[in-house]
């Protein structure tokens, strides 16, 4: 079991009112799954992602990542977990401006303390894997949206994480490019990578093999899905 949560609760305090973003979530995700987390805004799916991604700590409840209890780690320990085991892909790519693609991909390795030479080699190899080997020295502004998201995926993959967490990865892309990105995720998943995808679009969720539906801070449905193959028209 790669991810296991038990009675995960997250309460935000906004002024005098308390907001229960997560009201007790029990979820297990196995290695090699492709899960789409769905739900309307305010349903708690983003909060769930942040907890699973070790960006935040639960108010109560427990979370084991690859058998390790993450819920009581310190901030710097969480940073190390994020660095080694989790690859993030964001809606707005979040690449460093005026920084070549290759250096963007190198960033997690920099914080992992990898020396310059192997770092550059690994980053370049990962860019080639997402089909951008020739654009390693382009800056984000010189790349299309789809290409930028591929750089971001290469950055997520470069530390060989246990899991890829993608938060609305196609939200800023046109439908054709979205299809390319989803095809890439499916290809990664076929090679054994665990992918968890947050989206509110059913069109995107249908590429996953399992769909978790969130509402009011709870999982209301957990269904398997026969994925649509994201065949890219030539």
């Amino acid at each position, binding site marked *: 079991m790669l991810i296991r949560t038990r009675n995960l609760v997250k309460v935000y305090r906004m002024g005098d009112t308390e907001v229960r973003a997560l009201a007790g979530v029990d979820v297990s995700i196995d290695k090699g799954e492709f899960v789409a987390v769905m739900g309307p805004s305010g349903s708690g799916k983003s909060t769930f992602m*942040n907890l699973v*991604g070790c*960006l*935040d700590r639960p108010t109560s409840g427990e979370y084991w990542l690859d058998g390790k209890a993450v819920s009581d780690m310190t*901030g*710097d320990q969480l*940073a*190390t977990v*994020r*660095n*080694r085991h989790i690859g*993030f892909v*964001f809606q707005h790519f*979040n690449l*460093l*401006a*005026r*920084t070549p693609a290759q250096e963007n991909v190198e*960033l*997690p390795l*920099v*914080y*992992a*303390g990898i020396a310059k030479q192997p770092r550059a080699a690994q980053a370049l190899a990962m860019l080639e894997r997402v089909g951008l080997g020739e654009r390693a020295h382009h800056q984000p502004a010189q790349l299309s949206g789809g290409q930028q998201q591929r750089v971001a995926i290469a*950055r997520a993959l470069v*530390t060989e994480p246990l899991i890829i967490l993608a938060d609305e990865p196609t939200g800023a892309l046109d439908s054709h490019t979205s299809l390319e990105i989803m095809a890439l995720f499916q290809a990664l998943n076929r090679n054994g990578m665990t992918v968890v995808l947050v989206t509110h679009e059913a069109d995107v969720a249908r590429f996953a093999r399992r769909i978790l539906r969130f509402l009011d801070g709870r999982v209301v449905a957990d269904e398997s899905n026969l994925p649509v193959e994201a065949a890219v028209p030539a």
Partner: protein
Amino acid sequence: MSALQLLRIALRALAINKLRSALTMLGIVIGVGAVIVMLAVGAGAQARVEEQIRALGSNLLLVMPGTTTAGGVRMGFGSSSTLSEDDVAAINREIPGAVAAPALRGSAQVVWGNSNWSTQVYGTTPEYLEARQWPIAAGRGFEPAEMTSGGKVALVGATVARQLFGDADPLDQQIRIKRVPFTVIGVLETKGQSLIGHDQDDVILMPITTARSRVIGSANAAKQRSVGTVWVKMPQSADTREFEGQVRALLRQRHRLQPGADDDFSLRNLAEVMAAQEASSRVLALLLAAVASVSLLVGGIGIMNIMLVSVTERTREIGLRMAVGARTRDILGQFLVEAVTLSLIGGLVGVGLGIGAATLIASFAGWRVVLSPQAVVLAVAFAVGIGVFFGFYPARKAAQLNPVEALRFE
């Protein structure tokens, strides 16, 4: 994360906002430049004072004839010729280590060939040069025979040598002082200005016997052995107060003054006067540097301001860095290095600017400036310290951001 790594990140971030970085540095540049200039000017003033002390000779006591009271009217110092050559001899003889020399002063017109020059004439003894620590640059000093027989020989100061002889060699030349022919037997080393800006090299020395009989022409024959002033050099080891006391006691005894009676001479310790002046110039230099460092402080506030803006602007970048594994100290280090890089580059440019400005001041205003490596190191270190101090708060603010909120920041 290595320091080099952090430096590369900092340099890239600064390069993205070149104009802003340059303007932020400007505060530090001006601050460090001002500190460098002020320290250089202050050190220059101090060096001038120290030079004057050296020129005068350290551990020097000046004895001047005292006052007389004529019918209840007290005259000023020097109104009476109470010091004699015998007093000088007594000091040399009775106080161990003392070197005393008389000086009988007058002014005269000096003629050589068809050039002439008005200068000070001092009648003195060979001890004078030792007391004043004044070496002879060329030629020789007075012989004992010349002292007793009133030899018509003269030592000329550097200014007189230049004014009277120009490029010619003054040695063995015949000059006339008040129509009396003298032979120039030596030229003195350059001594420089006195404390009050008086040119000490504009002088001619001759045996005191010659001066009295031939040049300065004493009107009162009764006081034939009187002298104008007495210079006393005390030995290096002597305690100033004690030495002064010895000289005073000796002179009082020789002048047969009753206990309780006023001295008929006055003693002045010139080194002490100048030490006070040196101390005041040091305080002035310190004050100037302190004022200049205020501008450095203002520059530091500028850095803090820009770093706070930068942290806010780059909140999402910080969030991303945290998401991919940056720890608190990585983010803290990144922004701290950025602030220190700003202040360090600003400091180095400021040093260049300060040295340039100090050099300009030296050549245009003619002020003496002294650039010391310590001052440069101090100013740069101060600038870096400012960077650390004012960079820490914004850097800590960045490091303490919540990654979820930072990533969501618009």
